[in-house]
């Protein structure tokens, strides 16, 4: 199968083109060895199948971040048959910077000149023919959101795949640089390097001081040529300036030359709808309250639609199904233990988790709208002022917002932070952001004690998580990671109408991974815990006399000061360290014997009080994140120490908060 790779700047509409090419025929995974998301799909065109690989969105193909490395290694080493470079027509100069780097790689590349409609709206006129000639590669205008030009893009890609020759790099770096490139290249030619990178490109990168390539050569057998490279660099630097800056400058010179010939922009920039919306949403005083209001509405709607409307439908369905299956098994004379396992363990446990699928879907639906419409970047902008005053970087807030979905991508989103200090802090505080998996826990307790104020309670919990994260961030920036200044730079993409398809795909992505976890990790945890809860043989199932009950009873005293020192609650929290979804599943199972029907909620009403419900919810909000998150922190910090530190300090923070709430509440006579 031939491979087509997609590259482009963030916000260039790359994902929309990817969706248009592959439809639902796509899957998301990870690049081997790193945690960068890998998206792949299959395109069928004229009965031929093509593999489409969506590379991470980057501004450049340097060696700054894993994203950039993944993209450039894929192009140079995996050698796709053609690269589609998605270029935002409204911002052509900057987008073409990436294109120049692709040209340098000597790969077969075609440009998808996207968002032509928006360019038109801004009165930007582009002569596609001239642009293509200037760059020396094919250019296809597209409007991905309306599927305009996609067919043409596919045809052009296939035509390019079948061409024998790749394109010529037309960028001129000036006599001084080109001489040195030639010298270094000859030097490389004379050696037998063990690399798949083309030598001309290697020479350019060496002069550009690319840290990764330097490292690679240094570790190789031919490290002595680095001395000669440094000589070249010094030689140029002595007469002009650092070669790396000259090279970047020359790329822009090339771009300016090409754009001058082919693009006409109006003298006065058109005031767009985006500008007018921004006047309000990024307003000095209004920005923050509006942001808070939007989030409150999102949580309230999520609750009403996801829980009250659909969630209860699923819950009712599960209940009926559970009873039917149990009846069927009893009629078939199935062993009693099996019936108990299926009805208590599976339907009581895993089923309790499934009830929250609609809610998670609705939640991601809204987060998808916020992301795709371009509002997320504004939220980071609006929050930067507050974040600054706490000694944190504005982008930290984006990683926190992503963490609302799941802390794993939240922690990965900290990669956009350039300074190590900012990044470490952002990673360490991310677990306090309440993820989607913790949602079911609150919902059960809200249904039991605060059914009338669900949205508000939920919103307060999320806000509390954010506040604790910010507080810890401030403490960390004052103690553990002092010094180091960092800079804030971020693109604010224009507002766009999100497409239903894009949001649904995004939503399906998350929900399917949730379902997968429900089917694997949570199923396993529930099974093991269920077995432990009926052993030793002969003991009353799900009682404190079972092995599980004894383990729980052993831990329980720790939680006594927080008001929920029962073995059931302890076991639930214990399961939550494996996966947060397992908390409700476990509670569902250990309480399942208590009542029939909506047993869990009634059992919780008996076992907890409003006050202990709050302290338990706060505990689950803050305490040790799940194993996947700890693993991600371990990988991203490349240190076991920080992973263990996170697991322990979050537990401590959660415990202290829960104890304080219970003790202070009791002091004021609450129960």
């Amino acid at each position, binding site marked *: 199968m031939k491979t087509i790779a997609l590259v482009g700047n963030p916000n260039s509409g790359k994902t929309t083109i990817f969706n248009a090419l592959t439809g639902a025929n796509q899957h998301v995974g990870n690049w081997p060895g790193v945690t960068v998301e890998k998206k792949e799909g299959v395109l069928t065109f004229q009965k031929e199948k093509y593999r489409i690989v969506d590379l991470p969105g980057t501004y450049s193909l340097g060696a700054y971040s894993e994203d950039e490395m993944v993209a450039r290694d894929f192009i140079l080493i995996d050698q796709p048959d053609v690269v589609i470079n998605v270029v935002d027509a409204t911002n052509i100069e900057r987008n073409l910077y990436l294109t120049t780097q692709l040209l340098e790689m000597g790969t077969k590349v075609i440009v998808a000149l996207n968002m032509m409609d928006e360019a038109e709206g801004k009165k930007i006129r582009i002569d596609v023919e001239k642009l293509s000639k200037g760059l020396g590669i094919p250019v296809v205008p597209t409007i991905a959101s309306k599927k305009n030009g996609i067919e043409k893009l596919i045809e052009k890609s296939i035509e390019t795949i079948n061409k024998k020759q790749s394109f010529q790099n037309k960028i001129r770096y000036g006599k001084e640089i080109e001489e040195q490139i030639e010298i270094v290249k000859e030097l490389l030619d004379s050696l037998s390097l063990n690399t798949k990178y083309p030598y001309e490109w290697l020479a350019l990168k060496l002069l550009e001081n690319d840290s990764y390539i330097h490292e690679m050569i240094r570790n190789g057998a031919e490290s002595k040529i680095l001395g000669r490279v440094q000589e070249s660099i010094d030689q140029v630097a002595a007469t002009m300036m650092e070669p790396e*800056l000259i090279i970047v400058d020359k790329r822009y010179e090339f771009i300016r030359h090409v754009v001058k010939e082919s693009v006409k922009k109006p003298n006065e920039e058109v005031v767009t709808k985006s500008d007018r919306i921004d006047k309000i949403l990024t307003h000095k005083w209004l920005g923050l309250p509006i942001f808070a209001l939007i989030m409150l509405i999102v949580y309230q709607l999520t609750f009403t639609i996801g829980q009250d409307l659909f969630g209860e439908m699923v819950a009712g369905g599960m209940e009926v199904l559970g009873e039917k299956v149990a009846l069927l098994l009893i009629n078939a004379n199935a062993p009693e233990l099996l019936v108990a396992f299926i009805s208590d363990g599976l339907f009581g446990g895993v089923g309790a988790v499934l009830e929250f699928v609609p809610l998670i879907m609705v939640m991601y639906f809204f987060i998808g709208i916020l992301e795709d419409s371009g509002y997320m970047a504004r939220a980071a902008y609006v929050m930067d002022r507050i974040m600054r005053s706490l000694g944190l970087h504005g982008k930290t807030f984006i990683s926190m917002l992503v963490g609302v979905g799941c802390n794993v991508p939240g922690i990965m989103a900290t990669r956009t932070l350039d300074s190590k200090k900012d990044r470490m802090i952002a990673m360490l505080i991310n677990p306090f952001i309440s993820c989607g998996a913790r949602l079911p826990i609150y919902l059960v307790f809200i249904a039991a004690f605060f059914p009338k104020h669900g949205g508000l309670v939920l919103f307060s919990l999320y806000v509390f998580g954010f506040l604790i994260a910010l507080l810890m961030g401030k403490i960390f920036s004052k103690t553990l990671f002092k010094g180091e200044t960092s800079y804030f730079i971020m693109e604010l993409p224009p507002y766009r109408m999100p497409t239903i398809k894009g949001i649904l795909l995004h939503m399906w992505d998350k929900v399917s991974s949730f379902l997968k976890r429900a089917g694997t990790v949570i199923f396993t945890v529930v099974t093991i815990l269920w077995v432990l809860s009926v052993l030793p043989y002969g003991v009353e199932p799900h009682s404190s006399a079972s092995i599980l009950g004894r383990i729980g009873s052993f831990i329980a005293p720790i939680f006594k000061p927080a008001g929920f020192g029962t073995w059931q609650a302890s076991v639930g929290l214990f399961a939550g360290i494996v996966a947060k979804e397992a908390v409700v599943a476990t509670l569902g199972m250990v309480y399942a014997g208590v009542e029939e029907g909506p047993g869990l909620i009634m059992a919780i009403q008996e076992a907890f009080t409003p006050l202990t419900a709050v302290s338990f919810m706060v505990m689950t909000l803050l305490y040790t994140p799940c194993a996947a998150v700890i693993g991600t922190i371990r990988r991203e910090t490349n240190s076991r120490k920080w992973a263990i530190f996170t697991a322990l300090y979050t537990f401590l923070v959660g415990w202290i908060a829960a104890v304080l709430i219970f003790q202070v509440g009791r002091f004021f006579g609450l129960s």
Partner: protein
Amino acid sequence: MNIPLLFFTEGEKGIVNTIMGGQKIHKRLFEMGLNTGSEVQVIKNDAGPIIISLGGCKVALGRGLAQKIIMSRG
């Protein structure tokens, strides 16, 4: 006259003259399209990061960074 971008008022236009600071900042800004000679218009400059219009797209820059970008008034 050359002054830092930070002191531009809303609506004011200018051309990037030099960028102070290390090569890392230099390159990052270059990649975002903020290189010597590029035209910049300040859209917002109040309390938070400065918002500029750069080749038709909007970029938010921290105030510290905006002080390091030396502009000539256009």
